[in-house]
Structure formats: structure tokens, C-alpha cells
């Protein structure tokens, strides 16, 4: 069964067509990668899925529900989470608070219960704290729970971002260049981490990545976009041989 079906997604930035007729169907538990040169419209696709932009046309169907037009927070609570290409943690807040904010929607006390400190409040807060700490433990960040997140080293900031995305309890995780700025050792660690969370949280993952080591290592299916258009689709091995992909990445061979 398809978890998400994107059909004919098109988006214009005034005169510029950023995404053209993008189609994608994700099965439950799949790991699909979107690759393409810089400016190909990959992040725009993520922004369209999560409602940051509203597509000019097209449908996004998630578990039988139409997502286009919904406000961002509703899209997230229906089970999609994402990370950012450039890390966007809440820099001045603690690691724990970063995780707890991501659970905003799952908290079930009312504002009145909170400001008068009624019993329901304390119970729920304790639950959130426990859940957050368990998550931090999985990501090996529990010792940093009270560190201000801007003080974390780069690799840990990346991990925290993924942990924070998972705190929204998603079924589908969108990773936007998770390996950006990492050294080879960190990349290996990241690959392990992605495979681990995929199993543990039973996630479907959609991945944007530049580093071929990551893409070829873990993706089951790859979609190549260039200038907003899908130019190839297939397994990693098929993609590596595809002449159009090579052309997009390396440029056209001069004809004689």
C-alpha cells in the first residue's frame, strides 16, 4: 500500500518553474532518495510536501488524506517530519527543550491546566520529559540534555535535528542533506544511524543527498531531478549507468 502519492506537483516562483510535474509514490517502509544538481528543486519538493509553500498545482496524498492547502502543523501531525539542509535548531534553547517543543501537538493538557498547575499538568510533563529523555538516549545525547543547543559540536547538532524530527512521531521522515558538512567517519556513523532508526521507528524515509556514498549505500530507489524535472528513476545501479544522469552531473559531451 502506498503511504504517500505525489502526483503532477508543479510549483512556480513567479516566473521560474521550480518543480515540474513531479510524481512519486512511496510504499510503506521504503527508503527513497532524491538526487540532482544544486538548484534542481529538491528542497522545494520538501517545502511543498510540508506546506511551507503551496504548490501551484498537483496533489499530495498521504494515507488517503489530501495535504495540499493544510497548514504546516497539521501536515506534521498527520505523520510527516523533516530535517533541514542548514541546521535549524532552536539555538538558544536546551537540547531537551528542542525535543519537547517537537512534541507540542501530542501534549494533552489545556492552557488553563498549565497556568494553574492542575494535577494533569504535572503528570503529562513528566511523561514528556521521560519520552524526550528516551529519545535522547537512543541518539546518545542524554548527557547533553541541558546544554544550550548552539554549543553542541556539529555532528551532534545534526543528530539532534534528526532526534527532534522523530519526536513528532512521524511515519514518514524527510531528510534534507543529512550528511552535509560531515567527514567520512561521520558519514559512516550517519548511515548506521539512519538504518537503525528506520528499523526501530518503522519509518519510511525520503532523502535528499549529494554524497553518493550515502545515497548508493542505503537508498532502495533513486529519483534524479534536474531543473525541476524528473530525468531518471531506478535502483542505484541503474542510475549509475543512466546516460542522462551522467549528463546532468558532468555536463554534455561535446559533439564532433
Amino acid at each position, binding site marked *: 500500500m502506498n503511504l504517500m502519492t505525489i502526483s503532477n506537483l508543479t510549483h512556480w516562483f513567479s516566473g521560474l518553474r521550480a518543480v515540474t510535474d513531479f510524481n512519486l509514490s512511496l510504499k510503506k517502509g521504503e527508503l527513497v532518495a532524491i538526487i540532482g544538481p544544486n538548484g534542481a528543486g529538491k528542497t522545494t519538493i520538501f517545502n511543498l510536501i510540508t506546506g511551507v509553500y503551496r504548490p501551484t498545482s498537483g496533489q499530495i496524498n498521504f494515507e488517503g488524506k489530501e495535504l495540499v492547502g493544510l*497548514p504546516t502543523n497539521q501536515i506534521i501531525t498527520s505523520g510527516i517530519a523533516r530535517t533541514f539542509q542548514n541546521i535549524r535548531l532552536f539555538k538558544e534553547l536546551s537540547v531537551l527543550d528542542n525535543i519537547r517543543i517537537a512534541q507540542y501537538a501530542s501534549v494533552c493538557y489545556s*492552557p488553563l491546566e498549565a*497556568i494553574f498547575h492542575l494535577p494533569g499538568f504535572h503528570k503529562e510533563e513528566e511523561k514528556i520529559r521521560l519520552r524526550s529523555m528516551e529519545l535522547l538516549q537512543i541518539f546518545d545525547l542524554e*548527557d547533553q540534555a541541558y546544554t544550550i543547543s548552539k554549543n553542541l559540536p556539529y555532528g551532534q547538532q545534526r543528530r539532534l535535528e534528526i532526534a527532534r524530527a522523530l519526536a513528532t512521531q512521524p511515519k514518514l521522515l524527510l531528510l534534507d542533506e543529512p550528511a552535509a558538512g560531515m567527514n567520512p567517519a561521520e558519514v559512516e556513523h550517519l548511515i548506521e544511524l539512519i538504518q537503525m532508526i528506520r528499523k526501530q521507528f518503522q519509518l519510511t524515509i525520503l532523502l535528499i543527498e549529494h554524497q553518493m556514498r550515502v545515497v548508493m549505500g542505503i537508498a532502495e530507489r533513486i529519483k534524479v531531478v534536474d531543473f525541476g524535472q524528473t530525468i531518471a528513476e531506478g535502483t542505484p545501479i541503474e542510475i549509475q549507468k543512466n546516460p542522462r544522469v551522467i549528463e546532468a552531473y558532468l555536463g554534455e559531451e561535446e559533439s564532433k
Partner: protein
Amino acid sequence: MDVPVSVKVPLAVKFWTRWCMKFLLCIIFALTYILPKTGIINPYIDMVLIYIGINIILTISLNLVNGYMGEFSVGHAGFMALGAYTASLLSVWVIPDSLNPYLFPFTVVIGGVIAGVFALIVAFPSFRTRGDYLAIVTLAFNMIIKSAIENIDGIGGPRGFMGMDKMTNLPWTFVWVCITIFLARNFIFSNLGRGVLSLREDETAAGLLSVNTRQVKVLTFVFSAFLAGIAGALYAHELQYIYPKGFTIAKSTDMLVMVYLGGIGSIGGSVMGAVVYTIVLEALRSILQFAGISQEWRQVFAPLMLIFLMIYRPKGIMGMREFPFLIPEAERFQKISLNPFSKKNRNRKKSEEVKS
């Protein structure tokens, strides 16, 4: 998973946090009652203290929006006016004189509620976008409220409104300040409060992490206006005379100065800002008198101070920091390396178990 839930806190610390604050508050409350009665505090100081209290409430109210949420409201005097007029009209026209002292808390709360209702009306259109928009809308709102009151002859128009009994005294002010601090603190250290902080940090990211940004903004703004309304109601029953000119943009500027002086994003800072600013302004009054300079120059002080603060100390006295006693217990101890999830602590616990 072996997760130790409770943290061992020294008994003395526990006792201190649980009871000492409450005990201290009771003593101060008794003092606020006794001191003015016995004449140790003269009426002038009594009045200044009440103004300090009212200013604390106002500062906390504005800090929620400008400091914690990172939006910029410049029209809180409008909400204060609404609270002041609502409460005054209630106690002069509606509630019989004999019941007035007993229903005073009720009057004050109604003042706050009316301010909150108006905030809801302002919030819906103005939070569609972020940034300077709110500043412009609240500025306009402040002016509209002032002009509207000036033009309603039934409530005195530009002449103002009077006839309230002096209901606000030092003990009452103290109680309201405590309530305000309690509510604001609980608000900040709750789910909604974390949402507020996330908005200040990165609004887009907050939305993408399931925070209902619209709801957070509107609720915070309404809560803030409610507190401003309460302050207004207390103010009206202290001065016993309110007039539209008292709620102009100049009053809003005063609040801004107190917020940025005390420090954004801090309740303790708000208290300090209000205390320092009120006292300095009162001191300035006698200094100017002594030097033979016109009192008009006090008006210059607030904007000037705002400019210097923004340049030299934009975070204020306590920017983004908080006194430990203003942080709820559950949030407090974990900060001092008693994190039960920490590897160090888990290992220590294990080794202790092995020993025993």
C-alpha cells in the same frame, strides 16, 4: 529500560523550596498590611510601592509578547485603558457601593477579560504575517482606543472618569503581583510557553515541528492583554481618576523601557526593570524640582533611556536569565547536574548497587 525516575534532593533544599518561599510571601504580605497602617511607610512611599506593583504586572505582560515571543507590541497602554475603564465603570455604575470591597477581585478580573477579548479581535488579523506588522496594528489600536474614549461623552470623554473608591492598597497589589508572577511562570514553563520560545527562535522550524504557531501567538497575546487589563484596573482604583491622555503611546513607551531595562525573556528581569524604572523616575521628580528644571523633562527620559539601552545593553539587566526561585521545581534541579539519565549518574548508581 532502567530509568530512575526520582532524583535525590537534599532534604534542606527540598524544605527551602517547598515552604520557605511561601513562608516569605506570607511575611511580606503581613508587612504590606501592617506597615502602612502603623505609619512606618508614609502615604507617598505607599503610593510609589503600589505603582511599582502595577508596573511589574505591566512589564511581565509586555515581556510575554516582546521578550518571550519576539514579536513587537507597542500598544499595551490600550489594553490597560480597557481594563481601567471597564473596572471603573463596573465599580461606579454597576456594583452597589456596599458590595464594592468584596467584589473588587471580580471587578479587576472582568477588566482583564475585556482587555483579553479586544486582544483576540486585534490578534486575528495582525498575526497573519510576522514582523513589524504587529507593531503597526497595536500602535493603531492604542490610538483608536484613546480617541474612542475621548469621544464617548457618557464616560467623561476627554475630561476623564472618576468616582471610584480607593480600593487598590498595598496588600491587594502585592497579591495581584504574586498571582501574575505565578501565572506567567506557569505559562512560560508549559507546553505553550515552549511554543512561544520556539517562535522567537525560528518560526518556520516551529511550524515544521508540529507547533501550532497561530494558536500560540493568539493565546499569548490574549493572556498578555489580560494581565495588562488587570494592571489597568488596579491603576484606576489607585488613582481614582482616569483620563484618556493617561493611556497614550507615552505610557506604552514606559512599558517598553521597563521590559528592555529589566531584560527580555525573564520574569525576574521584568520585576527588576519595573522597580528600577519606577524609582528612578520618582527620584528624577525631586531632582528636577531641586534643580529648578521643568518637570516636562521627565518625558524625555524614557525615550532617551530606550535608545541607550538598545545600543549598549540590548539584553537588559537579566536578559534571558531567570532567578532559580522563579523556575518550577521540576525544571530546576535537573539543571544542576542531577540528570538521572546522565551516563555518569547511571554508572554511579550501578556501582553503588554493586557495593551494597
